[in-house]
C-alpha cells in the first residue's frame, strides 16, 4: 500500500475495485465505513453485488475481466472534462501526452459495450474521482488475478497520476495483501528476481554484496516463478521444498498440479497439518504453528510487527527456520548457524536496505513502516512523497484484451472465484475452528435466481460445473449477489475443488494465474455426492 491503513478514514472519495473488502479485510473495511459516516463518497467496481456495492454511491457492475476498458474510459472522461492535475503532471510524471492520446478511443459508450456498465455511470464515477480533493484507490486480487493483471494495475496508476492522488495523506494506490505475511515473504527475498529488500539478482553489485555477506556467488540470472516451476516438474525441476503452502488445493488446475508434484524425484513439505500437498511428499516435517513460535509479520501497510510464542510447539514440531537450517547444514551450505528467530531477523536487517534501520527490538511495538533506511529513521508511512522510486511517474498505454477464455456455446457461463469472510484459503485453520465452520459449513456456487430458473437448477440442489480442465459437483445457492450469467465460488473446500476448473491463463509478465475468470458449463446433477 502506498498509504497506511489509518489513512483510510481520510479520503473524500474512495474507489474500491476488485476487492470484497468487508469479507476479505473486514477490519480495514471498518475504517472505510467510518470515512463514509464522515461524508466520504464511495465508488465500487465489482462484477458481483458484494456488500460493499450496496453501500456505494456509484456502483459499476463490470463483466469479469473488463477492467482495462472500464478504467481507460474513466481516464478518457477525466481528460475530456479537464479534471487532470496539470501541475502534478508537469512536475512529477512523464508520457502524459501518449496516455491522453491513447485513451481518446476509450469512450464510455465503447466501454459499455465491453464491460456492460452503463456509460453514464462510468462518467459519474470518473467525475467523482476526478474532482476529489483526496481520492484513494483500494484493490485486491480482483485486479491482479487476470491475464491482464499488470495492465489493470497500470490503468489504475494512470488514474492516480493524472489526478495527482498520490504522495499525500488520504490518497494513493493501495493493494490490500491477502495473507498475513505475503508482504513479508517478498520483503525477505522469497522471489525469483530479488534478494531480500527487493534488490535485483541481475545486478552484479548485489551479487557482490551477497557474496560478501554469505560467502557464495549466486547466479545473476533470475529464477523462474512457481507457476513455471510446476510446469517444469519432472523435467528441469526434480526436487522441491514447499513450506506452509497447500499448493494442490490453492493453485489453479489441480490435476496438473498434483501430476507435477508426483513427478518429482524428491519432495519435502514443511507444514502444520498433513495437507493434500504434504500427503504427496517424500518427507513431511512438522512445523511449530502460530502461537508456538517467535517471529515477524509485515502487514499490507509495510509494517513489520512481532508475533510471539505463547505455548510450546505441539509434539516434536519445530520452527521453520530451524528445520531449514538443519537441512542446509547437512548439505554443507554456509551461514545457517542461527540460534533464534531473532538471529535470523537481524541477519535480514543487515542485508536489506528497506529494513536497514530496523532490528528485532525495534519491531517489538510495530511502529515503523518500511523503508527504514538507517537507524533512527522514523519509517515511511506514505510512499512517493515528492518523488517516485524511479524519479518521475510513468504513464502507460495498456490495451484491452479479452480474458484467456470467453463464453461460448459449450461453456456459456463466467465463473469467478474468491474468498468468504468466515474461511481462509484452504480451510486448514478455519475448517478446524467451531465458530467459523458453523457460519459456512460447505461450499456453494452462487447463481442469480433467474439463472437458477432458466438453467433448470434448484436452490439448495446439486449441480455439475465443468470447464475445459475438469468438473466438480457443488451445491447451488440462488442469490442476487451474482449477476446474470456469472457464478461465484470460493476455493476453500477440498471436497469442492474449484481450482480443478480454473487455470485458463496467466499474466505474461508476472505469471499470476487468471483465477478470477474462466468459463464453465453448469447443469443440474442427477445425483447428490456420496
Amino acid at each position, binding site marked *: 500500500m502506498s498509504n497506511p491503513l489509518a489513512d483510510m478514514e481520510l479520503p473524500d472519495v474512495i474507489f474500491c475495485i476488485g476487492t470484497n473488502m468487508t469479507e476479505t479485510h473486514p477490519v480495514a473495511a471498518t475504517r472505510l465505513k467510518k470515512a463514509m459516516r464522515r461524508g466520504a463518497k464511495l465508488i465500487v467496481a465489482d462484477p458481483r453485488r458484494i456488500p460493499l456495492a450496496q453501500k456505494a454511491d456509484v456502483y459499476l457492475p463490470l463483466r469479469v475481466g473488463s477492467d482495462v476498458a472500464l478504467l481507460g474510459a474513466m481516464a478518457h472522461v477525466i481528460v475530456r472534462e479537464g479534471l487532470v492535475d496539470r501541475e502534478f503532471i508537469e512536475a512529477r510524471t512523464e508520457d502524459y501526452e501518449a496516455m491522453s492520446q491513447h485513451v481518446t478511443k476509450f469512450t464510455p459508450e465503447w466501454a459499455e459495450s465491453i464491460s456492460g456498465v452503463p456509460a453514464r455511470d462510468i462518467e459519474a464515477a470518473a467525475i467523482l474521482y476526478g474532482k476529489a480533493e483526496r481520492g484513494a484507490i483500494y484493490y485486491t486480487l480482483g485486479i491482479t488475478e487476470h491475464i491482464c493483471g499488470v495492465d489493470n494495475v497500470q490503468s489504475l496508476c494512470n488514474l492516480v497520476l493524472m489526478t495527482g492522488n498520490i504522495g499525500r495523506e488520504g490518497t494513493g494506490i493501495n493493494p490490500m495483501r491477502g495473507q498475513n505475511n505475503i508482504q513479508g515473504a517478498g520483503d525477505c527475498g522469497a522471489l525469483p528476481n530479488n534478494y531480500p529488500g527487493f534488490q535485483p539478482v541481475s545486478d552484479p553489485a548485489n551479487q557482490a554484496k551477497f557474496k560478501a555477506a554469505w560467502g557464495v556467488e549466486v547466479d545473476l540470472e533470475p529464477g523462474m516463478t512457481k507457476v513455471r516451476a510446476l510446469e517444469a516438474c519432472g523435467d528441469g525441476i526434480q526436487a522441491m521444498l514447499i513450506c506452509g503452502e497447500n499448493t494442490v488445493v490453492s493453485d489453479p488446475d489441480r490435476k496438473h498440479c498434483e501430476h507435477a508434484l508426483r513427478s518429482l524425484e524428491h519432495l519435502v513439505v514443511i507444514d502444520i497439518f498433513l495437507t493434500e500437498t504434504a500427503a504427496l511428499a*517424500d518427507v513431511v516435517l512438522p512445523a511449530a504453528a502460530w502461537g508456538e513460535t517467535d517471529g515477524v509479520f509485515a*502487514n499490507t501497510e509495510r509494517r513489520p510487527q*512481532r508475533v*510471539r510464542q505463547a505455548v510450546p510447539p505441539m509434539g516434536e514440531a519445530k520452527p521453520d527456520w530451524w528445520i531449514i537450517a538443519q537441512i*542446509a547444514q547437512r548439505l554443507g551450505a554456509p551461514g545457517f548457524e542461527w540460534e533464534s528467530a531473532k538471529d535470523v531477523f537481524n541477519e535480514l536487517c543487515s542485508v536489506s536496505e528497506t529494513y536497514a534501520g530496523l532490528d528485532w527490538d525495534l519491531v517489538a511495538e510495530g511502529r515503523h513502516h518500511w523503508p527504514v533506511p538507517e537507524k533512527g529513521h522514523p519509517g515511511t508511512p506514505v510512499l512517493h512523497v515528492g518523488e517516485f522510486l524511479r524519479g518521475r511517474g510513468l504513464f502507460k498505454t495498456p490495451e484491452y484484451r479479452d480474458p484467456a477464455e470467453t463464453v461460448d456455446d459449450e461453456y456459456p457461463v463466467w465463473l469467478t472465484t474468491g474468498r468468504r469472510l468466515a474461511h481462509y484459503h484452504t480451510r486448514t485453520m478455519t475448517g478446524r475452528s467451531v465458530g467459523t465452520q458453523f457460519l459456512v459449513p460447505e461450499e456453494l456456487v452462487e447463481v442469480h435466481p433467474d439463472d437458477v430458473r432458466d438453467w433448470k437448477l434448484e436452490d439448495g440442489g446439486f449441480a455439475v460445473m465443468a470447464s475445459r480442465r475438469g468438473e466438480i459437483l457443488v451445491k447451488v445457492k440462488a442469490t442476487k449477489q451474482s449477476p446474470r450469467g456469472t457464478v461465484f465460488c470460493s476455493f476453500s473446500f477440498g471436497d469442492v475443488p474449484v481450482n480443478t476448473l480454473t487455470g485458463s491463463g496467466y499474466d505474461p509478465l508476472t505469471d499470476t494465474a487468471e483465477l478470477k475468470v474462466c468459463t464453465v458449463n453448469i447443469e443440474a446433477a442427477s445425483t447428490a455426492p456420496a
Partner: protein
Amino acid sequence: MSDDTNGYELSLLELDGEELKFRAGETLYEVAQRRNKDVPTLCYDPRLEAFGACRLCVVEVDGIRNPVASCTTKAQAGMVVRTKTEALEKHRKTLMELVVSENPEATIDPLRGMASQELGVLAERYGADGSRFQGKHSGSSRPDDPNPMIGRDYDHCISCYRCVRVCAEQEGDYAISIKNRGFGTQITVEFDGFLSDSACTFCGQCVQTCPTGALNDLRARKHEDTPGELEATRSICPYCGVGCSVDIMTKEDTVVAVRPAMDGPANEGALCVKGQFGWEWIQNPERLTKPLVRKGGKGGELVEATWEEALERAAQGFAQVRDTHGRHAVYAVASGRAPHESAYSVQKFIRAGFMSNLVDNCSRA
C-alpha cells in the same frame, strides 16, 4: 505542574484542588484520567462517543447544583471540580445497588470477555449487593441462539448499550439494537431472531466491550475448567494482511482465547470473526507432531520417523538431485503465512545452498 500537560492549551481548571491545563473539547473524565483519578465508569468505552447512561462517573462542579456525568461534560476554563467526596461516593453506591439488582448473583468467569469483570469489581468496591431493589431486571437471555461463538445471557445486562454502540460506531454493522427502556430494556437483533440471521459478522466487538459478561465468548468458556492462571501474550493475527494486534490468552500450556489489542496500531481494538473465534486449529489433535518419511519408494507409505532420520533423508534427497541433475533442478516455495524468518531461510536455502534464484512464494495463486 508536571510535564504531561505539554501541548495543552493554557485554559485552567481546578481538579481536586490542583490547577490543570486542558485541551479544547476534552471532557472532565479525560482530564481526570490524565491525572490518574479513580473515577468509576460502566457505560464508557474510550473508542466510543460518550453516552452518559450509567452516571457512575459523576463529579461535583462548583456552581452546578447536581453532580454531572464527567464523561459527557466538556472541561471549561475556571471550573472547580471534585472527583471524590463522601456525597459522590454515596450516590455512586446507590447507583451500583440499583445496577447490581438487575443481575443474578453469579461469578463471572474472566474468559467471558475482556471487560467482563468491570461490574463485579465496582460492585465489590461499593459493597453493593442489590438487595435494596430486588425483583426487577431488564433483559432475558437467549440460550436458544445456536451460534457457537457469542453467548447472549441478557439476564446479566445492565443496559449500558456499549454493545449496540460498538457495533454501530466501530464495526459499522448495526446488527443489534435496543427494544424498550428502563427495566424493560432488551438488547435484540432484527425480528428478535438469532445472530446468524442478522447483519452480525461475529466480529466479537460487543463481547469484548460488555462490562458484565452478558455477551460472552463461548469458545473461550469451554476452558472455564482448564487449570491455570489466565495469561496474555501479545501477537499479530495469523489471517489477512491487515495485521491486527491480538493477545493470545493461555492457561499454562493451553490456548484458551484470542482477544483484540486496544492499542494495536493496525486495528485499534477491532478484529473479525476469523481472528476472534478461529483459533481452535492451533492445538488440534490432527496437527502433525512427528516427522514423516515415505518408506518403500514412491508408492510407499508415510511413516513416523525421528528428526535425525527425517532431516538426513530430506538433505540426501536434495544432494542426490543436485549431483545427478545439477543445482538448477532444485526449487523452493516459501509461505506467505509463516513469519519472516521462515521466508528468509527458504530463500537463503536456495541461494546459499544451490547458488540459484529458483525460489518463489505463494502470492501468484
